[in-house]
């Protein structure tokens, strides 16, 4: 069986239609997805202290911060994860939070007024969390 000219045209149209719908979304997701561009933002008392792109190729990086009144917090990032290794706060909620790597996740140290949050395209199942 042979395809007629009309059939060929329809096939071409079909391919274009497919590409522009599914293909387009796939390409878009590739570029926009959280895995591609994640940034950790460290904020101290409302001010941005540092922004760190989180990539799988990142080597271990230690960020020791001396805060007011002898307080301190030591943040570590390796590959695409970031966490608080050590903190002078009494309850260590920040340390216990563990490693985070997904956009929308955050670590908060209230006594040290430090927030670490990951920005990027949101790809989680929830919009926020009740604590």
């Amino acid at each position, binding site marked *: *069986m*042979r*395809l*007629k000219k*009309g*059939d060929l045209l*329809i*096939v071409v*149209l*079909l391919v274009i*239609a*497919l590409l522009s*719908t599914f293909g387009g*979304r796939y390409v878009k997701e590739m570029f*926009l997805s959280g895995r591609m561009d994640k940034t950790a933002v460290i*904020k101290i*008392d*409302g001010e941005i202290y540092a922004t760190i792109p989180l990539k799988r190729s990142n080597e271990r990086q230690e960020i020791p911060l001396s805060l007011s009144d002898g307080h301190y917090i030591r943040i570590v990032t390796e590959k695409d994860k970031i966490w608080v290794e050590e903190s002078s706060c*009494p*309850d260590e*909620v920040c340390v*216990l*939070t*563990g490693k*985070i790597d997904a956009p929308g*996740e*955050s*670590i*908060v140290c*209230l*006594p040290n*007024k430090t*927030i670490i*949050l990951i920005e990027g*395209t*949101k790809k989680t*199942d*929830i*919009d*926020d*969390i*009740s*604590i």
Partner: protein
Amino acid sequence: MQRRKRSPKPSLIILLFVALLAGCTPLAKDTGDSQEYEPVSESEFLMGTVVKLTIFDEAEEAEALFRKAFERIAEIEEKMTINDEHEKSEITRLNQEAGKGFVKLSPETFYVLEKGKYYSEISNGKYDITIGPLVKLWNIGSDEARVPGKTEIENTLSLVNYQNLLLDKEKMSARLAVPGMIVDLGSIAKGYAADETAKILKEAGIKHAIVNLGGNILVLNERPDGTPWRIGLQDPFTARGDYMGIVKLEDESLVTSGTYERYFEDGGKRYHHILNPETGYPEENSLLSVSIITKNSIDADGLSTATFLLGLEKGMQFIEGLPDTEAIFITSDKKVYVTSGISKEKFEITKEEYQLVQSGVVP
């Protein structure tokens, strides 16, 4: 002959596919693209916690709006705090005048105080808005947290009694009858601040937003795509940010009181921040957390503490007796109890080890 018969087939099939695709495309666009909204978010340290505001509408003046909301929250904090150097706190003034005369308050401070007294009354003092002296004694959440001596606790308990908080609505003033009494709005003021923040956002025309005051959630309407917001419920056993279930909310507030929120350890024992005004010690019952869903956040905030202190059985009855109020209880053996108004669609458990016990039934 055979060729002729077959030749229309491919084009027919292809045409069918194209027709199908054409039909599918708008649908895929509707569900796909609307979820790719780009929310704008801003956080600040206020009221002793992190306040996070997220707007999902296209708002050109989002920055100005965030600032306005944060300023409003700061204003509420200034009026109602008891941890202050701020001389402006009306509640500090009320506490300083304990045992003396009435103190004039602003309408909003009076409103929050009145709500606090109301929840103290309807929980028969299991929750007490005059818990301040005990809170100061334990100091949980600060560097100076410690287990007080027995006598210290006994002496302090006599100062805790909401009935000695007298309110005069006409004169918009309040009085603490006994010297040394301390009102503490810590269990309710964040709820009020969330409601006021929502008001500011609504007045600015915002339709889809999340107000998060240290884990107290208030949502404006539904998601931009029309589906309910999905809010995770903190797993009491694991790290902050890890959830055990998802609650769907629409124009509601969800506030959780849990033992894991603030605590300190001493001699291998954990002391959490929800103090029982009758014993003077952190409340020890089967519960690890109580989450309340109401329209206004001030109610969810006050009720979450009150219900926690009432315990599972009485707390369940208490909430079932209140209109438009629902609750989710998590016990230390990982059982989950919900009030009768919480459907399977409203709340789903996402971690297998948690077991849902039939709605509204307590053994």
